[in-house]
């Protein structure tokens, strides 16, 4: 392990960064006062709320999905780009850069799709002192109806052309922010790269309707009884973002320095994006939920983890997980795991049992107290037996030991049994189990060499008709 303390300092396409934590272009970076407070809290950079011709916003702009008592697991907005004049935003950028010269300020830009308009805004943003430019080709609501935002990001030709116009004038790095509202993120990524982009950021928000009010029949967020599709973000979108990040980083035609965005709320999320190749990460929803202060633990936690793992810099682990993401056809078909239930931890909820019967492969059974294994007893049979049982309130005097109903030891009959011969190793039981490490997936293939579908096809072990089914769209 490295004796020296690790550092979060890094560079992003030539821009020196105090740390990889940037605030994404969004309400938390609306004005200079906010950005300076964010820098004081520890954010290494900020992508300014998108600058363009001022717009008019609607009232009621956000809505969210709560999940079993936790608020804002998914977040949605129909707010547009900055509603403040371009010159005010640029003056404030200049002010922030003067007072925080080591912090990164990226100007997010969106103007009409005319060469002169882009040339002009690029010139003005750089004159104000921005360290780089982020082209907002991703905003999915409102602006797209006016031919901007995702209307550009969704058409590779526009994406390439506008990136090219910007590059004609830009002296600082040009980052293209991609929309996820396409079928293959690599297509616009390649277009941006062809257009000369220095870096990419992904993902922007996902088209969404967060919900309908069951009393008024109106969708959220409610604007005078109506709503419009908005941009979805927050913890719910992280898996989608990680996949798109990996797709970009694994594609030679797309790969560029990448700023990861999508559901990042803590250092763990950040580490995952960096392991898939991101150089910096951008945060919005978590900061909107809890405030700028969340960056303290993002720094502290990531540094502690790096110390534990022996990483001195972000480059030591950046992209480390990319080789582990493969195409399905390259996965080892001879790898075999089965579920093991650890009796000492089992609380007897039997969620694994019902999940295996209804959602998987019917190989978990409630026969621990049967004289012989019984794989024919169905959940319905168990329920009918239970309904027939007669229970009474235990009374200390009348029922010896009966009042000790509270048991800290799970009765054997409530601990399910895995039929390992039929278990396919799908993981479902271990996923539904509420107790950590109670169900573990154990490897049982012994001394069988790895073999993938691709290899089986190459060896001629696969009937010809089945081969094409597995081909992918690379």
């Amino acid at each position, binding site marked *: 392990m490295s004796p020296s303390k690790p550092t979060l300092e890094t560079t992003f396409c030539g821009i020196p960064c105090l740390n990889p934590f940037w605030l994404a272009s969004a309400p938390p970076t609306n004005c200079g006062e906010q950005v300076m407070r964010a820098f004081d809290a520890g954010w290494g950079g900020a992508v300014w709320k998108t600058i363009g011709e001022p717009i008019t916003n609607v009232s009621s702009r956000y809505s969210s999905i709560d999940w*079993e*008592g936790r608020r804002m697991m998914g977040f949605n907005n129909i707010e547009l780009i900055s509603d403040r004049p371009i010159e005010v935003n640029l003056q404030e950028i200049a002010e922030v850069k003067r007072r925080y010269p080591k912090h990164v300020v990226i100007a997010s830009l969106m103007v009409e799709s005319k060469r002169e308009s882009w040339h002009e805004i690029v010139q003005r943003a750089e004159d104000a002192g921005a360290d780089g430019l982020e082209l907002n080709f991703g905003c999915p609501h409102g602006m797209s109806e006016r031919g901007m935002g995702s209307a550009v990001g969704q058409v590779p030709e526009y994406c390439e052309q506008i990136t090219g116009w910007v590059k004609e004038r830009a002296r600082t790095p040009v980052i293209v922010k991609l929309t996820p509202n396409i079928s293959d993120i690599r297509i616009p990524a390649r277009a941006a790269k062809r257009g000369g982009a220095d870096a990419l950021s992904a993902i922007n928000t996902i088209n969404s309707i967060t919900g309908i009010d069951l009393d008024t029949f109106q969708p959220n967020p409610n604007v005078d009884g109506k709503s419009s599709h908005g941009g979805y973000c927050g913890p719910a979108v992280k898996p989608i973002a990680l996949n798109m990040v990996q797709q970009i980083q694994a594609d030679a035609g797309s790969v560029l320095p990448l700023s990861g965005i999508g559901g990042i709320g803590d250092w763990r999320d950040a580490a995952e994006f960096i392991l898939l190749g991101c150089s910096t990460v951008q945060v919005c929803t978590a900061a909107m939920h809890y405030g700028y202060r969340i960056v303290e633990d993002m720094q502290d936690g990531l540094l502690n983890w790096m110390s534990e793992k022996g990483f001195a810099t972000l480059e030591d682990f950046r992209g480390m997980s990319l080789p582990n993401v493969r195409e399905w056809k390259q996965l080892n078909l001879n790898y075999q795991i089965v579920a093991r239930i650890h009796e000492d931890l089992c*609380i*007897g*909820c*039997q*969620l694994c*049992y*019902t999940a295996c019967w209804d959602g998987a492969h019917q190989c978990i059974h*409630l026969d621990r107290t049967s004289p012989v294994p019984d794989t024919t007893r169905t*959940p319905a049979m*168990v*329920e009918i037996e*239970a*309904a*027939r*049982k*007669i*229970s*009474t*309130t*235990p*009374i*200390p*005097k*009348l029922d010896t030991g009966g*009042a000790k*109903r*509270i*048991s*800290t*030891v*799970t009765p054997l009959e*409530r601990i399910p049994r895995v039929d390992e011969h039929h278990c396919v190793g799908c993981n479902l039981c271990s996923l539904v189990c*509420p*107790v950590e490490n109670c169900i573990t997936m154990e490897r049982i293939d012994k001394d069988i060499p790895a073999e993938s579908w691709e290899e089986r096809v190459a060896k001629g072990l696969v009937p010809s008709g089945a081969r094409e089914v597995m081909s992918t769209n690379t």
Partner: protein
Amino acid sequence: MSERVPFPEQIAATSKVAERFGDLHPPLDRQAAVPEANRCLYCFDAPCTNACPTHIDVPRFIKKIASGNLSGSARTILDANILGASCSRACPVEVLCEGACVMHRYNKQPIQIARLQRFAMDALHESGAPLPFEPGAETGFSVALVGAGPASLACAAELRRRGTRADLYDARPLPGGLNTYGVAEYKLPLVESLREIEMLAQLGVDFHFETRIDAAGLAELEQKHDAVFLGIGLGAIHQLGVTGEGLPGVTNALDLIAGYKSGSLTTIPNRVVVVGAGNTAIDAAIAAVRLGATDVHIVYRRGPEQMSAFTFEYEHAKNEGVKFLWHVQPTGIHGSRAVEGIELTKLESTDDGSIVPRDGSEFVLEADLIVLSIGQATHSGFLSASSSKSGKIQVERGRIVIDRATGQTSNPKFFAGGDCTNGGREVVDAVADGKRAGVGIAAWLEAQHVTV
């Protein structure tokens, strides 16, 4: 039938005494209920459901609270337990559903099942919606139910849902038996019991109040009806059999509890001694404290390990300031015109395990009121006198012997359930007995009809 005044309106407005008996477990509000409901793991073949004598599908009604389907939640509860609101308050859930919750083995607090159940039932009552069941198509059968306590009410509900007429006979002016008159007010207020029975009455149950059924009356009922259900509970509280027991100032726990609940008893003297250490004794002792007694003792022949009260009841009593005297036996009641004290003799164990009084250990505990709570007598005498032509009703140790699955007695036309069959348990046990008997009677009547 003349216009009936709803049961909750037949009692006097809440007395000042009731204010001293606030909820032991206050209700949950929506914002507390929903996260609590979401904590439920939704176990398969759930231990809570198995532990409940009425087998309420607990995970199902809890998930309905989480999803906001409160009417569905209440229906799930009532479908299994027609006194679901009463039971949510009166049940000793620590040894039932909540005691069985798997969370105990997860190092977490069990799901607050009782409070969630009350939340769903309160929501139904507040909504003013009717009972979510309809009477079944009339079969023409008629069943007499003796006693209008929880067992008979549950039995009547099952019968009505199956289209069988149910006539309930009770000696008291209001229905519910001990559910109405015998549960501590801080658990189940009298008015809540009546509210629930009022709802049940929507199924078309015929009540005959202030009607005491004796042996001759029972024979008459047998003749008039197709079957008879005995939900007669237990009899009077046992006497001590010591001198001075007839003095004013000697009462029993059931009279004390019924008295303050119905408003006829509003004050209590300072020094109260409760004899016995069962759950009813605890209820009486705590009631004495709440009514204003300054010095309340429970005296018991044996030690805390042997008392029949639940541990949490014992803890509750201690928290209320009730004092316990163990290993003492009342050997006399002192007083000239009224009770002045109770003579107690210390008991000690001998080598062979029996307990004997220690000579010369007598002492007098001063008291103004002595409350007996040493178990109830049974009605076995009344039953043995009523041997009918269709057969005798078998009784063992004072309890009516039944087939647990159907409630049927040794006389096939007679069914029974509740305290008169189990020797005295909880409201929920009586409801479960009554429910099984209701299903059993309907099935038996149908089978009789088919063979005719």
